[in-house]
């Protein structure tokens, strides 16, 4: 029987209350939202907080709201809510693609976007999605809000810019005309970690050339966007040869480890192939040729 080590438990009644509790109990306190990453780690003693601060009562952090050219997503928004959102699907289909393969339907009832990003697991899908979309993270602390980009948010595996006495409260996605996106993952079975996954977002200029391209990969040893592959497509009209080259460059850029899920060669192959697929799908979606 796997049981967490003893800890004390407190329920936050507001964002400020959560920050006050985190400040009071210091580095040995940990926020719990869905709990589907934290509790397994606590059972294995990979995490051993003295205090668990439950933020599940902060319902005002559970929202998807359009604000001008931004879509604002509350940090406590459940995976299931994102998956079922028609607005998310129409604006950022990469989010819907990814949510379809985050864990399994039961886990998605509990897990949150904020929890996924703060967990910062290298095999975590939404980190790649938010990186590709150039998301901004709103972090609340005693001094108020600060807003940072994903490249600053991610510090490494299981590490983010969210300090011990801060709370991620919102994720902001910028809505761009003539753009779309896609995500695809290969996993051995539902709920397993990704063998590899790739995401892409494209924005067209008026003349049919690609104004901007973003490519990101999951679980293959690369946190940042794949700049070399993006450069092949940017400023050009999309072509099969350029997409194939972008895939090839992504396969070269990644740095996967061999493990029970596959060899280095296989994971490079997947990075290449999945990058091509998501580029094709994002382009077709932006052109209105595919849902």
């Amino acid at each position, binding site marked *: *029987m*796997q*049981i*967490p*080590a*003893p*800890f*004390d*438990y407190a*329920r936050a009644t507001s964002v400020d209350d959560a920050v006050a509790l985190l400040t009071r109990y210091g580095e040995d306190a940990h926020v*719990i939202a869905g*709990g*589907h990453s934290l*509790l*397994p780690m606590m*059972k294995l003693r990979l995490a051993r907080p003295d205090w*668990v601060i*439950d933020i*599940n009562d902060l319902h005002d952090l559970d929202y998807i709201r359009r604000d001008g050219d931004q879509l604002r997503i509350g940090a406590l928004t459940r995976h299931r809510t994102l998956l079922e959102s028609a607005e998310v699907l129409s604006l950022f289909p990469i989010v819907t693609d990814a949510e379809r393969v985050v*864990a*399994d*339907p*039961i*886990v998605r*009832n*509990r897990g949150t976007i904020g929890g996924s990003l703060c967990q910062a697991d290298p095999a975590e899908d939404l980190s790649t999605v938010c990186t590709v979309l150039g998301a901004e993270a709103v972090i609340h602390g005693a001094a108020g809000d600060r807003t940072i980009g994903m490249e600053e948010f991610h510090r490494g595996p299981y590490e983010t810019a969210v300090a011990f006495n801060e709370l991620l409260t919102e994720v902001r996605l910028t809505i761009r005309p003539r753009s779309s996106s896609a995500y695809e993952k290969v996993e051995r079975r*539902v*709920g397993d970690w990704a063998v590899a996954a790739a995401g892409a977002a494209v924005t067209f200029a008026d003349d049919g050339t690609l104004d901007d391209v973003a490519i990101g990969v999951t679980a293959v040893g690369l946190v940042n966007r794949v700049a070399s592959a993006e450069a092949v497509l940017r400023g050009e009209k999309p072509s099969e040869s350029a997409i194939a080259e972008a895939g090839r460059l992504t396969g070269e850029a990644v740095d996967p480890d061999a493990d029970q899920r596959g060899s280095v060669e296989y994971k490079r192959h997947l990075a290449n192939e999945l990058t091509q697929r998501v580029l094709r799908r994002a382009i077709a979606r932006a052109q209105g040729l595919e849902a």
Partner: protein
Amino acid sequence: MHVTMTVNGDEVERDIEPRVLLVHFLRENLGLTGTHWGCDTSNCGTCVVQIDGEPVKSCTVLAAMADGHAVRTVEGLEVAGTVDPIQQGFMEEHGLQCGFCTPGMMLTARALLDENPHPSEGEIREAISGQICRCTGYATIVRSIQWAADHPAETADSTLEDEDVKA
């Protein structure tokens, strides 16, 4: 710490350690051993119960997190001596072999039909995709849920009687 929650319609209160997981609270503190405890890692789904009508893996929820909420377990499917159509479906279509995954499968199925009374086979398979039947009896589990969808609660009794008469 002190927790108060509704379990199968009854309010329960207990003093527990904060680290007690919901699955163990149900089994050991309340004696509701119908909820099974399997992998401990939120992979197998045999521990699925409903919190506020939504299926969750109770090995990965603290009992403290369920404080103030409504929990439903397999013991709460039967109402006033009448089995739920889901339970009837698992009997009609041989939805269990060893039975270990069955409580979790049924709670997920009940939540699915509450939201989507006529799911496609694909929707059923998606709904139970986070749960493992180690007997690999998935085909009959899917058929059991389809049976329940075809026999909603108000007609379940009469169907049973009809078939009893035929038998």
